[in-house]
């Protein structure tokens, strides 16, 4: 078939654009050393801004998103990772990456406080930047005068149909709660039996924090088991603008699980990038980086409502005192079980 010159030229131009754009993109990223930070932490952009302003050798570039899709992105990149730093809630993902030899250990010893020391990995393979609690029992004190404060109290008939939680398959932070439940009750089996009894007592399962809190607001439930930062944000909101008949308060049934935020460095990036990534982690854990936690308006950015892990850091003014009893689960033990436990939850708790 004969072809017209116009078509041929168009086709050639398209091919050239296709080929050269990649090369141009590569060239554009030459100086300063660009470091991709995959993050699901609300105040990370502020840390990046402060770090980039503090030096000129490295430029940390923000790739923000939700934890789930970011982890999927990392997994899809496989043996050719494009991230130098990964920062998100939880430590099971970091432990899994560490076990597969993907992480470059920190080249310095962070000045962890007591909480940080308990949460940090012994091999210093990733940094702990703070901690939230899974779960807080956010309840409507206007309707529930005596909230359950023990784990087993959640199963009492007086709370039948009044308590809701999130689905671990959709809400990332919910798995540490379930793992913590099993850890606290002594075994995976005991935890499963507890959840089955909980279901029999009318447990309401919603997707994630937002829908569970809404169910509480409209009175569908009277207590939602959610991440403590979401619960604190709700308390702040209704303390500022009270509404009759709705008084959100927080309790911690049983021993809630501390869920650290982890910041990890990819070992497979070029040496210069790893050096820059180390500098960024050092900055985040430094007094300058830690000051962002207290300085940020928590009503607009709830991720700063975490418990600090570094000595001398002042927590945000809205952060309440730590639960009197709490537990820390071993991410290297519970991380690998997540897939099976979440599937069990789908089949036995979420589905009829």
């Amino acid at each position: 078939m004969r072809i017209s010159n116009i078509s041929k030229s168009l086709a050639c131009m398209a091919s050239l654009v296709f080929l050269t754009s990649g090369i141009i993109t590569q060239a554009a990223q030459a100086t300063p050393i660009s470091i991709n930070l995959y993050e699901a932490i609300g105040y990370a952009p502020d840390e990046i801004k402060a770090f980039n302003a503090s030096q000129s050798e490295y430029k940390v570039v923000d790739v923000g998103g939700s934890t789930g899709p970011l982890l999927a992105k990392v997994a899809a990149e496989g043996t050719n990772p494009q991230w130098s730093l990964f920062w998100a809630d939880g430590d099971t993902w970091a432990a899994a990456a560490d076990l597969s030899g993907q992480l470059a250990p920190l080249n310095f010893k962070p000045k962890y406080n007591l909480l940080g020391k308990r949460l940090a990995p012994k091999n210093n393979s990733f940094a702990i930047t703070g901690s939230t609690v899974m779960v807080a029992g956010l309840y409507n004190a206007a309707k529930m005068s005596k909230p359950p404060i023990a784990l087993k109290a959640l199963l009492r008939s007086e709370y039948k149909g009044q308590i809701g939680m999130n689905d671990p398959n959709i809400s990332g932070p919910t798995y540490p709660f379930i793992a913590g439940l099993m850890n606290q009750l002594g075994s995976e089996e005991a935890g499963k039996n507890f959840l089955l009894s909980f279901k029999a007592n009318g447990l309401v399962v919603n997707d994630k924090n937002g829908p569970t809190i809404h169910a509480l607001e409209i009175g569908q439930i009277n207590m939602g088991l959610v991440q403590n930062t979401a619960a604190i944000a709700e308390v702040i909101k209704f303390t500022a603008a009270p509404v009759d008949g709705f008084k959100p308060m927080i309790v911690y049934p049983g021993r809630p699980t501390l869920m650290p935020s982890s910041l990890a460095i990819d070992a497979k990036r070029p040496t210069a990038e790893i050096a820059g990534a180390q500098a960024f982690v050092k900055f985040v854990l430094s007094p300058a980086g830690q000051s962002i936690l207290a300085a940020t308006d928590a009503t607009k950015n709830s991720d700063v409502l975490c418990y600090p892990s570094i000595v001398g850091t002042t927590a945000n003014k809205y952060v309440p005192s730590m639960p009197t009893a709490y537990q820390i689960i071993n991410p290297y033990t519970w991380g690998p079980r997540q897939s099976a436990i979440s599937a069990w939850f789908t089949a036995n708790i979420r589905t009829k």
Partner: protein
Amino acid sequence: MALDTAPLVRDRVPFSSLPLTLAKKVNRIRITPMFVFWTLILFILVIPIVLFLSVAFSPRLMSQGNQWFTFSSFKPVFSGAYGTALMHSLTLGIVASLGATAIALSMAWLVLRTDTPARFLWNGTIFALFLAPSYLIALGWQRLFEQRGVLEIMGLHIEPIRNLLYGPVGIALVLMVKGLPFAYLVIANAMRGLGEEFEQAVRVHGGSRIAAFKIMASLLTPSLFSAMAIVFAEAISDFGVASTLSSIGHFSVATYQLYQGINSIPVNFPVSAATSITLLSLVLLAIFAQNRALRGRSFRTLSGRTRPATLTRLSLFVKASTSSYIVVLLLITLGIPIFGAVSASMLEGLGSLLSHYSINFSNYTRVFHSRFLRNPLIYSTQMSLITATIAVAIATIASKVLTSIKPSKSKKFVDFFLLAAVALPGIVFAIGYIFTYNLRFINDLGLHLYGTSFLLALAYSANALPSTSRSLVGNMGQIQESMMDAARVHGSKPLRAWLDVTMPLIARPLLIAWLLTFSGTLLELPVSELLYPPGSPPVAVGIELSLAGFDYGGGTAIEILSILWALVVVGIAFFIFNRFAPPGWKRLGRLR
């Protein structure tokens, strides 16, 4: 006119020491528009999908496990629970596609062919319907029907309806509403190209008005099937609506398993790929049904002599009842998401009408200065403009291939991959892109496409291609090819012949397809989230980040502002078309 190039090929010297037959084949390759089209289809659609699906059998191929070949990923797929979920997805797909297509057909006829007064309302809001995110549709339904929701506050006893809504009926309804604008655009485009002569022939020969409507419907069969196929594929790939509305009914769908694999730690892509393969088997069923229905029939009714249709004058009673039908439908399709938006972004207090609430714009004034709005919206607008242009160009050729009378393997091939791109959730599609364009050997060639706006535009285009192509199928299937042949015989070059003959017939559908793609891309999330260039988040990612920080009011406000911005662009595009397009381009669909 095709020339015999065989003698030229025979004289060529083989360019390598490859076996003669292969070298001959390579020598025969020409850079034609179709060659460029197939190359693009291969690189933006086929390879990413195939690489993702291959992980189900060979996890090691993409560094997702140790096994080179295994069936173990299919183990969860063969469980009884998953079988039930797959049947649920199939049923939802069928109900949503049939419902959306039937309603869209009736609406297209009322709006385009009758003088029912409310038709102007529909025409003015169709793009708003298309832009309403399923999240807002589901939210609106929830706010109305939930415990202590609006209807209960009004004193209505709606518990039985609520039980239906929070389950298969509600999910099918929302998916139907979501698919309706698309089905309408496809069918309306085709109806505009259908002259009145066929209906008149029926009436002249004594046929009733219903018989004439049936004839018109049968001539629209390609577009009806196009609409059904795409709504079906969208419905079976849905996850958000089903998971939102099944929280009480616990109604399982096939995509749940898929997301479970992706949300695992470590991520389990092989199981997700195995699940995707079962979803694609449902797509094969849809294509099989379509091919059976259209086989051997011609629907080429659009020619230079196509006569404009006449407006059917309705009686007062019919006018009242059809207008009520349109208004009720608008209240359901547009009123409910608007209510969801108001509830989420303007109600202070509990976010519902329970008690002590106030309506204000504080979230809107606040997000005007948000880092998630301005730059992300500008970037998304630029990307959407580029994507719409690329996608419409490719879709024009794709729809021509799809409407070819001759049954060919290439037609089935394009059809399958276009529907596969819809039936696979966006996140899966994006992962296929990472698999493909982040391969180390491609980087070693100096091509670093992953993480660039260029690749994002290609992925957006591929993602939009199915719906864009399908929106053109109805029209392309109506064009009589003899018109192009006549122009060529009279000396027009191919491009000139296409511009003079085909362009006037498809100008408006092309504009609508372009706007459809623009609007669909502006708020696209899954592909954006995984493929956006570092440091340049699109607006959908901005909204997601805002919602993730528990700023539900702010996030929804950004979403509404983006939708309004898209509507402004749609308005500008229609103004430019109506003001500056050649008169011949605007003739199709005009009524007498």
